[in-house]
């Protein structure tokens, strides 16, 4: 059965791309295998674990629940685009490193992107709010304690009152 093809034009990490893809291609596969940005991870492909979270026009989205053609004309940010410059870390990344907020690191890109949107919206966050915001991302290694500490640390540095 032939699959319909479509051209997808999208911006990922401030770089414009145009690619011809099958209409059924998941956005997560498009980013990982077409654009070879493999920092976005796929954990469940049914929208529960949050590992594949990216920012679409600034909003956190599960790239496994979107089709590549839905990215047409959108601005996408993935973990590769999070740090301000090569060799530098974003304050959230830096805080994760300092507090041991990651172990295997598989869920981490999705958590970083979710937390970026969360702290960009308002960096003054309580621990309860942080836990609530994290609750859509599963981590099997850390028990979340160091992740919560990392986000709180980053929040303070990003201008929040803690």
């Amino acid at each position, binding site marked *: 059965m032939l699959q319909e093809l479509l051209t997808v034009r999208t911006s990922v990490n401030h770089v414009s791309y145009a690619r011809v893809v099958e209409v059924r291609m998941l956005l997560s596969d498009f980013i*990982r295998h077409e654009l070879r940005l493999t920092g976005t*991870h796929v954990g469940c492909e049914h929208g529960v674990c949050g590992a594949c979270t990216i920012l679409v026009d600034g909003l956190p989205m599960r790239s496994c629940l979107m089709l590549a053609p839905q990215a047409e004309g959108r601005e996408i940010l993935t973990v590769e685009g999070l740090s301000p410059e090569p060799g530098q870390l974003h304050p959230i990344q830096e805080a994760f490193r300092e507090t*041991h907020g990651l172990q295997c690191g598989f869920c981490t890109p999705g958590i970083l992107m979710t937390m970026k949107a969360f702290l960009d919206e308002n960096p003054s966050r309580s621990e309860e709010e942080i836990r609530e915001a994290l*609750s859509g991302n599963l981590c099997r290694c850390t028990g979340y*304690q160091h992740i919560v500490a990392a986000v709180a640390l980053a929040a303070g540095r990003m201008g929040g009152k803690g």
Partner: protein
Amino acid sequence: MVKNRYFGAPVTRNEDEVLLTGRAQFVDDVDLADLLHAAVLRSPHAHARIGAIDTARACARDGVVAVYTAADLGEFWRPAPLVVPPPPIEGLVFNQRTQFPLAKDKVRHLGEALALVVAESRYVAEDALGDIVVEFDPLPVAADLEKASAIASARVHEDVPGNIAATVHQRKGDYAATAREAARIIKRRFFYEHGMAQPMETRGVVAQWDERAERLCVWATTQAPTSLRNGLAALLGINEAQVRVIAPFVGGGFGAKLLMYYPEELLIPWAAIRLAGSIKWIEDRGEHFVATTHERGQIHDAEIALAEDGKILGIKDEFLHDTGAYNPYGLTVPINSQCSILGPYHVPSYDSAFTAVFTNKPIVAPYRGAGRQHGVFVIERLLDIAAREMGIDGTEIRRRNFIAAGAFPYRNEIMFQDFTELRYDSGDYAPILDRALERIDYRRFKQEEQPRLRAGGVRSGIGVVCYIEGTGIGPYEGARVQIQANGRVCVVTGIGTQGQGHYTSLAQIVADRLGVSVGDVDVITGDTDRFYWGAGTFASRGAVVAGNAVYQAAEAVHQKILRVAAEHFSCKEDELIVDGGEVSVAGKPDQRIELGTLATKANPMRGAVSPGTEPGLEATRYFGPESGTVASGVHAMIVEVDPETMMVSIKDYVVVHDCGTAINPLIVAGQIHGGVAQGIGNAFYEQLVFDDQGQLLNATLADYLLPTALDIPPMTLDHTVTASKTNPLGIKGVGEAGAIPVGALFAQALEDALDLPARGVEILEVPLSPSRLWELSRS
């Protein structure tokens, strides 16, 4: 001797930067030219005869390269080797039935692999799965553990009546005689179900056959790359030197990536050779639920004999263990359960027998804790009940039974999973309990807080449980430490790593010995071309066994540095200072040489390397502990239960733990936090629900509930230290400690919160859930 600067310090991790920036390579990130993609057809039945398999339509589909069934495998089709043989215990019965690369004649569990499709894309490969037509003749299903053990049950393997996978009986002392002297005997039946590891990265294999080089390269999410290399070479009939297995960054393992040999680990390399190409297979989460190993249920009939003062005289236990359709991992899980019942307590007599039972369910193999949870649940519940019936405080009855600090090494006179006697090398349990009670303020909670809360209608309860964990078992690991010409230090070991921080903890060990910074040490793990030998990462052994190999190799390199530098400076070795990446002569600030320069001197282009020495600043050492080393701990928790919804809110969670000397307290804390989270999942959220047809009813992450950040409380950690006596660094494993006692802790705390015993209700099972608590509290 260089002072410890990094060992014991909360050093941030070397591996974090690549992980945080998305540059770390996981198996699904491997990209090769002309890469093909595979998908596996899996059985929708738990037990069925297989008739014809029609693959014609699949083969004809555009983009499909090959479709394989068992009939295509020829001599490659045979049962997988046994990973762990049964231990040499007298009278032991073991019926070895291991899994096949693809099922032939019949399927024995849901998700068993039936056919492999290789195609130009994963999408096409999955399309083609739908083209394959399989004739099934469903058979009666042995799904329930207890029913499966009956002689009249449907047989998972036709030639195994009663589905007996194994029977094991171990004894210490004479339980029957001690029971006759007992002031009290308590008997209960316990049910303990354990779920599955569910690492956030599923399994995956990429295999590349380079026809000109005649070499196979396999990237796999395995916890045991060396064993996989050896097995592949043996099963494919090629030289081990032709096979390279790489376990790159692996997204969590917890035991689930330990099984050798998952069907896909064999099939993908086999097909890559046959097609002379490269093939990728990545498990999806739906497959993971039925194609990756589980842990599962045990039913214990246990009794404890006690003296008037609450001292244990003996324990008798008989249990059934659900091993699933095949038993490639031998008896590790039930033997851990059997041994864990003894806990940190002096148990003069013990009589324990178990039957491992085949069922039409996915394979059971170790998952973090690996059966220890089951055993801890039995002994801790027995002590809770004894305390209540005998009017002794629950913490006091534990204290009275602790093995005395002076009694180590303590012999248990039964055999552990590592084929050595269960022997506790060191420990001191009372201070751990004291510390935990202090940190959770046990007395104040019991005397003031709980009565006050109860008066206000709040259902609040406390739990305090103890456990030990056998860690750091043999046989061995090895490491090579090498100083390179650029001054960086390279450490290579055969273990794989799945997030435990080995890139940092092993570097810390070396950095101190060689006077360099942790960031100057590159740790390479999980690549069989870089290090030939190794067993793998499991049983909380990576840091203990590989860590000590690394330590000894680094020490040998340190000696080489001294020898070469003493020659260079024409001084005595004890005049040299090795620090800051260089060697200098004490009191002579102008006499210094960088380690990289010294390494080059030790590997000269001209002149001669003296007879009896080796070139370079390099050493390889192997460490094999005589037996495991035993860690211990106490978990304490205060909970409140909503009487309407039965939802549990954890108000305080304390872990006091003794893992010997900690290499990196930050990493130790992370290991404990993560373990506790998995323990909480097991105790209250996670249950694999099978129906009587062996169908898994909740095989999505929306239905099988992994705990979220809202379910896991902040934890308070504290540590005591009794150094291990089985290794030079004095370290004990910590990987599984957090997960082990949580089921027992929940049972105790929830009973207390709901005051269930006053109403004649006891919690004798795990996992619990709000609905199960509701049922229990109204029974």
